């Protein structure tokens, strides 16, 4: 599949069909995959694809808006929904992006993999998708690990493994099975089920850790505001010091802003250097929005986002 991808990129760059292509490459060590910007045909051989290609690259199309030509992008099924939302939210025109879909059969959560293997990721040389399991090379040994042990949480409940509205595709998704009896909203419901005090304690502990590096915001496709409300000085919504209450405000307000736009790509949680389980916050909103307003982000170009829409008979608990 990598060959096919590289050939396609060489061709598209050669035709002038796009100015550059955004995919993945290996970083400083084999298990470290980073975004790769291919501006020249000669660099196309750096492109890779595999279960460690975690990033949602959609955010990068925003900075390509000033280009004269198009930008090409490798998207997994989940990430494709960000493109839909960006088009819907008037941030890009669909025909300015060359969407290359890639069949994804699940991504690896490096933290889970480290635990299962008992060795740090730096010793992992390769991870290959093999249907219901991953083939993981550690040193000279190849180990088979069931997907259910090491999949990213979001992949368990993947509803959209196939690319969505692509210009080119690298293949079809092969069906695969995952054992396990967890449900999509388990983590959210577990928290919902706790007494209020415990929920509070849980989140306070999370928010307290936040160093406000803004990585969750910067990586998020939906955070495309020219000037973030948190960066405004008149008025100043948020004090700069990362005190607990400021951090809590930051995360709650961000959640409110992303409500109905979050496509659950999981980037915020993945990049958080202090492991705040932001996914749970966003999953909660996703759950409520589905239940209350019957809406899922990123699925269609022509639906109205739920918080700028209403029904006359919306639930009304407010007396």
């Amino acid at each position, binding site marked *: 599949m990598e060959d096919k991808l590289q050939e396609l990129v060489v061709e598209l760059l050669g035709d002038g069909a796009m100015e550059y292509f955004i995919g993945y490459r290996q970083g400083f060590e084999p298990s470290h995959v980073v975004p790769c910007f291919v501006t020249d045909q000669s660099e196309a051989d750096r492109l890779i694809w595999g279960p460690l290609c975690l990033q949602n690259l959609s955010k990068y199309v925003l900075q390509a808006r000033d280009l004269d030509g198009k930008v090409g992008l490798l998207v997994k099924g989940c990430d494709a929904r960000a493109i839909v939302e960006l088009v819907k939210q008037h941030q890009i025109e669909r025909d300015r992006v060359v969407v290359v879909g890639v069949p994804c059969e699940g991504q690896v959560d490096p933290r889970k993999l480290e635990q299962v293997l008992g060795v740090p990721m730096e010793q992992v040389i390769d991870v290959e998708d093999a249907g219901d399991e991953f083939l993981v090379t550690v040193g000279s040994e190849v180990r088979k690990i069931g997907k259910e042990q090491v999949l990213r949480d979001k992949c368990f409940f993947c509803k959209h493994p196939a690319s969505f509205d692509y210009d080119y595709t690298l293949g079809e998704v092969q069906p695969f099975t995952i054992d396990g009896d967890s449900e999509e909203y388990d983590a959210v419901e577990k928290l919902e089920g706790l007494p209020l005090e415990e929920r509070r304690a849980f989140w306070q502990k999370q928010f307290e850790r936040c160093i406000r590096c803004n990585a969750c915001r910067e990586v998020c496709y939906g955070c495309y505001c020219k000037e973030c409300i948190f960066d405004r000085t008149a008025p100043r919504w948020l004090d700069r010091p990362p005190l607990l*209450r400021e951090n809590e405000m930051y995360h709650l307000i961000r959640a409110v802003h992303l409500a109905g736009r979050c496509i659950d790509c999981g980037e915020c949680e993945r990049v958080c250097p202090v492991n705040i389980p932001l996914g749970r*916050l966003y999953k909660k909103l996703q759950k409520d929005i589905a239940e209350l307003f019957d809406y899922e982000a990123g699925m269609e170009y022509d639906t109205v986002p739920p918080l700028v829409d209403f029904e006359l008979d919306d639930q009304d608990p407010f007396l």
Partner: protein
Amino acid sequence: MASESSDEGGNGYEPKILVFACNWCSYAGADLAGVSRLQMPANCRIIRVMCSARVRPEFVVTALSKGLDGVLVLGCHPGDCHYSEGNYFTRRRGLLLKNLLQFVGIEPERFQVRWVSASEGAKFADTVEQVTEQIRALGPNRPRSGNQSAEPGDR
């Protein structure tokens, strides 16, 4: 940060509650309560907005974060909005925000939305009474790391 009245829990604790009231219905309802001399607890402070849909959720989060004990958003009854549709947005935002705040452990009583029309002076008074008592029963909105007590560093 805390005023004398909201310093401590227990006896003598007086919650401080921020109320947003839409100009056309709820603010008028509050005026009517006044004209009718309906007596109520003195814990609410009204900010007048033209429509309840002007109340951005950030205001609610900010107010609670800054230590106010509760936020009450009042609007026209659904269907009666002066601008036809505003309070429908208030309703959706309110639903979601209420759930979100509860999810992170903020008592649901601290953020409430109610519909009060221009003729419902009595309902306004009752609402103020109820919400005040509910929040009084909860006690002070525990500050998230007060200014002086912040323990910086040690990360």
